[in-house]
């Protein structure tokens, strides 16, 4: 039986999708620059995992992290202002799309070196353990491509060796930029990598937000219980190009279309309508609400000032008295 929690999942996915569609538009218009990596198609992953986390838990993500930031509860205004590089951005405008941070919400970025956030996550979990903050979880999101990096392996071993409360969320969208998983991994069952460290690991249909939510619920409970890390392989797909620079020549359109048939947003919407959790008017209201939020965020970002050039060298070192 779908309930309000499920409507919240739909809202969460819609917010991400519409936000990013707007970002793509704003990129073309020149308001957003640099790298822009869209999560469109993969929304069910962040939307499904995040509700299982508590405010005290921590999240580490990659350069493809708008969805995670929004699902984690960063205000859309602050995220959009960051995309614009404005002072009201969640990273004060310094980071842009790839470096969304909100330490208050324990959202530790936004790391654009593939796999480099994974050791950070292990360290955050280690800090929780050493400080006696039991029951806390650090969720770390990364792509299939990251599994080929040595950093993943070193970090996985540490987490398992020390039985740290890390939830590894591997977003397997089957491509690392333009290179297909089967062209860069000798063994494409990514759960086996985790298993070789004695980490419990299971695959999840990342196009089904309810499946993600349920799998993550179990995984988070296990991690929270102190039995060590868990690895989820969330099988999903990126509809858009890798970044705005990507000519997307390496895959068939038909492959994209096939995945789109399993789009998590209409699927959940249909399910909700079928089971009476949402009627067409409710859905329209939701769409309108999201559209309004985005419009408001854009207006906020546009109104937010640029940082004065004189402040260029701020934040290379902590300002006196920060701690």
């Amino acid at each position, binding site marked *: 039986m779908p309930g309000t929690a499920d409507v919240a999942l739909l809202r969460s996915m819609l917010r991400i999708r519409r936000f990013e569609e707007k970002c793509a538009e704003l990129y073309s218009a020149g308001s957003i620059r640099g790298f822009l990596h869209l999560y469109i198609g993969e929304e069910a992953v962040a939307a499904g995992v995040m509700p299982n986390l508590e405010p005290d838990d921590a999240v580490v993500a990659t350069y493809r992290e708008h969805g995670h930031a929004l699902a984690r509860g960063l205000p859309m205004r602050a995220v959009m202002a960051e995309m614009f590089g404005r002072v009201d951005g969640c990273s004060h405008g310094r980071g842009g799309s790839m470096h969304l941070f909100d330490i208050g919400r324990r959202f530790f970025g936004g*790391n654009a070196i593939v796999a480099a956030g994974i050791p950070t996550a292990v360290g955050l979990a280690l800090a929780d353990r050493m400080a006696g903050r039991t029951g806390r979880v650090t969720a770390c999101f990364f792509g299939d491509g990251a599994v080929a990096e040595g950093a993943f392996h070193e970090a996985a071993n540490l987490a398992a060796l020390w039985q740290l409360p890390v939830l590894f969320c591997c977003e397997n969208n089957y491509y690392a930029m333009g*290179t297909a998983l089967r062209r860069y991994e000798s063994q494409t069952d990514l759960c086996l990598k985790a298993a070789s460290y004695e980490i419990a690991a299971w695959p999840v249909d990342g196009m089904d937000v309810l499946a993600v939510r349920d799998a993550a619920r179990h995984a988070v409970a296990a991690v929270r219980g102190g039995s060590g890390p868990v690895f989820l392989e969330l099988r999903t797909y990126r509809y858009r190009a890798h970044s705005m620079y990507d000519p997307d020549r390496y895959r068939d359109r038909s492959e994209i279309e096939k995945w789109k048939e399993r789009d998590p947003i209409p699927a959940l919407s249909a399910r909700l309508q079928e089971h009476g959790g949402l009627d067409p008017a409710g859905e329209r209201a939701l769409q309108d609400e999201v559209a309004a939020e985005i419009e408001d965020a854009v207006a906020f970002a546009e109104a937010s000032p640029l940082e004065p050039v004189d402040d260029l060298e701020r934040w290379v070192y902590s300002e006196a008295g920060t701690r």
Partner: protein
Amino acid sequence: MTTLREPLSTTASAASGDGDTTTYREAVGEAIREAMLADDRVFLMGEDVGAYGGAHGVSKGLLEEFGEERVRDTPLSENGFVGAGVGAALGGMRPIVEIMTVNFSLLALDQILNTAATVLHMSGGQAAVPLVIRMTTGGGRQLAAQHSHSLEGWYAHIPGLRVIAPATVGDARWMLGPALADPDPVVIFEHGMLYNASGTVGTGPVDISTAAVRRRGDDVTIAAYGGTVALAMQAADELAADGVQADVVDLRVLRPLDSATVADSVRRTHRLVVVDEGWRSGSLAAEVATRVHEDVFYELDAPVRRVCSAEVPLPYPRHLEQAALPSVARVVAACRALTGHG
């Protein structure tokens, strides 16, 4: 995008009749293609060099032309595939390993310093590594703090490497051949802002041991490399409008560093500005300045000036990024301060 003008003079090719214009991107691609056609031992390996066409579009079409064996897409494993390149070179191949950007090359630095650059020496001269590593460098595209480094100076510190930084379309086209012919590892830096630059291809090969004087003038020397050569040329234009004539030296070969060409220029101009996109402290510009002070101290009218990047990880917003990077205005100001035309 700044378009580099024709070099006024290069120490290389006898500035031939080949007036074809192309982009820096195409010039690099064509250089790779030519090398692969000429020598079966040459192959290209790196992340997304094949099906994607190269993160910067350099190798577009090469997979189709040469196949997967010789245009080898790799996993995201910088240390692993650079090391495999070292091994393949030891095994008699002539690999061109592309590291997508210098930012990721840190992950492979162990293989580059501790094996590629060192194994010849520690084997007593037996194990030469004829490896070419290409990587994109630099900022200016709002890619923020982790994707905008300019670490050429670090590589130029490593004994055993040759380090080159083609700044013109011609050098991009013609330096790869000699790099592949070099029995030792060569690191090539391609500035990300240059790929769209167009210019004439000229003829090659271009020598990879000397700097190139790109413009002649007697009032001040501007030494630059890679992405900052275009700034130096523009600054020289602005200065010329005021009657100040600048010599522009494109360092081009960062190791072994040809400081003699700079010193020669300074003997005429008595003033030097070094432009370097690296962070100021510990920059390659410091080495250039130090050598010039060492070699022609008594020729200098004033201490060498450096125009480098501010000591800050590059910020995302354009106005801040631009303020952090060397600019034409800062180069002009440094030259004016030296020539008393401030």
